[in-house]
């Protein structure tokens, strides 16, 4: 199978990363990967209310992931879904290792992700946006978190699956990754794949993350050097 838009197997979709897109937020970012667009806003850290949510040993990190009703061909009905709940959870787990939450007990940080347009890879685009938004908010971080999905189609490893590729891939494997320490913070996979392919797929995903990492850093530079 040829890739859409003449992409090579190991090539990312056209990527746009922009920091500082929501004026009211303490930090924010927009990430487009092809036709998938995620916006993330960060509020905090601030004293957390109601108090019963406060944690005695660390900052409470709240992540909310939501798809806009008009983000897909079939309108998304507003409200909670089981898929959305799981993505909130793995997104939080993907971001937490980059933060020093133990330094600020009783505080809260809110990370809100809106998917404006969805064409595969919404959780990875959301994590990329959230990570830049956290940095944009001036929250100290061990590293940026960067995220992409990989798959295998017609015997070839495909980076950053898009549209119909997701329907035909033998597996869908998203990761989140902190390049500085070479640490994986999100790992999911479903499909049917020999163990040796998993290794190759992870290597490809890490390469993709390293390219995205540069784009994330560039966006933060543009935001903060211009001002």
């Amino acid at each position, binding site marked *: 199978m040829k890739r859409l838009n003449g992409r090579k197997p190991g090539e990312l979709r056209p990527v746009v990363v922009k920091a500082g897109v929501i004026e*009211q937020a303490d930090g924010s970012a927009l990430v487009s990967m092809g036709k998938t667009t995620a916006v993330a806003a960060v509020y905090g850290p*601030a*004293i957390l209310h109601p108090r019963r949510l406060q944690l005695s040993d660390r900052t409470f990190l709240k992540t909310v992931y939501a798809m806009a009703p008009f983000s897909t061909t079939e309108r998304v009905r507003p409200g909670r879904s089981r898929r959305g709940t799981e993505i909130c959870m793995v997104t939080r787990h993907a971001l937490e290792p980059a933060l020093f939450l133990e330094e600020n007990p009783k505080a809260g940080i809110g990370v809100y992700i809106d998917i404006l347009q969805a064409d595969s890879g919404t959780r990875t685009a959301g994590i990329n946006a959230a990570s830049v938004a956290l940095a944009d908010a001036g929250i100290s971080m061990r590293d940026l978190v960067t995220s992409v999905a990989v798959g295998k189609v017609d015997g070839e490893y495909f980076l950053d699956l898009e549209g119909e590729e997701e329907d035909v891939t033998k597996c869908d494997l998203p990761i989140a990754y902190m390049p500085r320490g070479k640490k994986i913070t999100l790992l999911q996979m479903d499909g049917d794949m020999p163990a040796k392919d998993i290794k190759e797929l992870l290597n490809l995903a890490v390469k993709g993350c390293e390219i995205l990492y540069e784009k994330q850093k560039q966006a933060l530079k543009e935001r903060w050097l211009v001002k």
Partner: protein
Amino acid sequence: MVGKVGDGVILQKQYLLNLASKGERIDKRKPDEYRKIVVEKDVLGKAEGSARVKIGETEVIVGVKIDIGEPYPDKPDDGVMIVGAEFSPVASPRFEAGPPDENAIELARVVDRGIRESGVIDTKKLCIKKGERVWLVNVDIHILNHSGNLMDAAALAAVTALWNSKMPELKGDKLNYEKKTKKLPVKFKPITITFARIGESLFTDPNLDEENVMDMRLSVAFKDDDNVCALQKGGIGTLSLEEIEKMIETAIKKSKEMRKLIA
């Protein structure tokens, strides 16, 4: 969830009231002056119509999704339009994920009535088979940045998105969203103009600081022929008949200017 303490809110209120007593505003605008308005259409790839409107820092995206459904029993040959609004937590620390709050519901219902009751959409043309199948038009308002006067921004974005919506192809029972056939039958471009009262002064297009200290808000919507198609008072302040008259007069003029932005 995560909120900032309201330090200085009371001082801010006094300052804005002092300015208002001289007819002045915190951002130097004239009483009837809008912040800069930017209207973009067709900003979403998966929607049948869309628009992004910025009024100052306030930013709203509206997406129109068109589907097929059943008509209401009492209107068997009318298409159905539904307006929804979500105050995404992205837009403001005061918004929370969850069921829409009363402000979001008011926003959606005022935009909905402004479009529905004035006959903006020719719903008779949206009937496929009487009593069984009609076109369903979902208008979803998505707030990206809340910096005051969401009402006017949302109404402007909704009308712009509808004005530029295209119908998906209907083949037998199935919709083909890849192929658009013709435009959605939209007849008018209603425009909503909102005032806030601070002290004794009436200001159009209140920004967020002004909304925080205003005691009353009035939104007036006009059709292309300058007929009023909606009124909605907000807030716990009161209104005199003279004030209403004065605001309607001002609003007619402002609506003519704003309507030119829809293309």
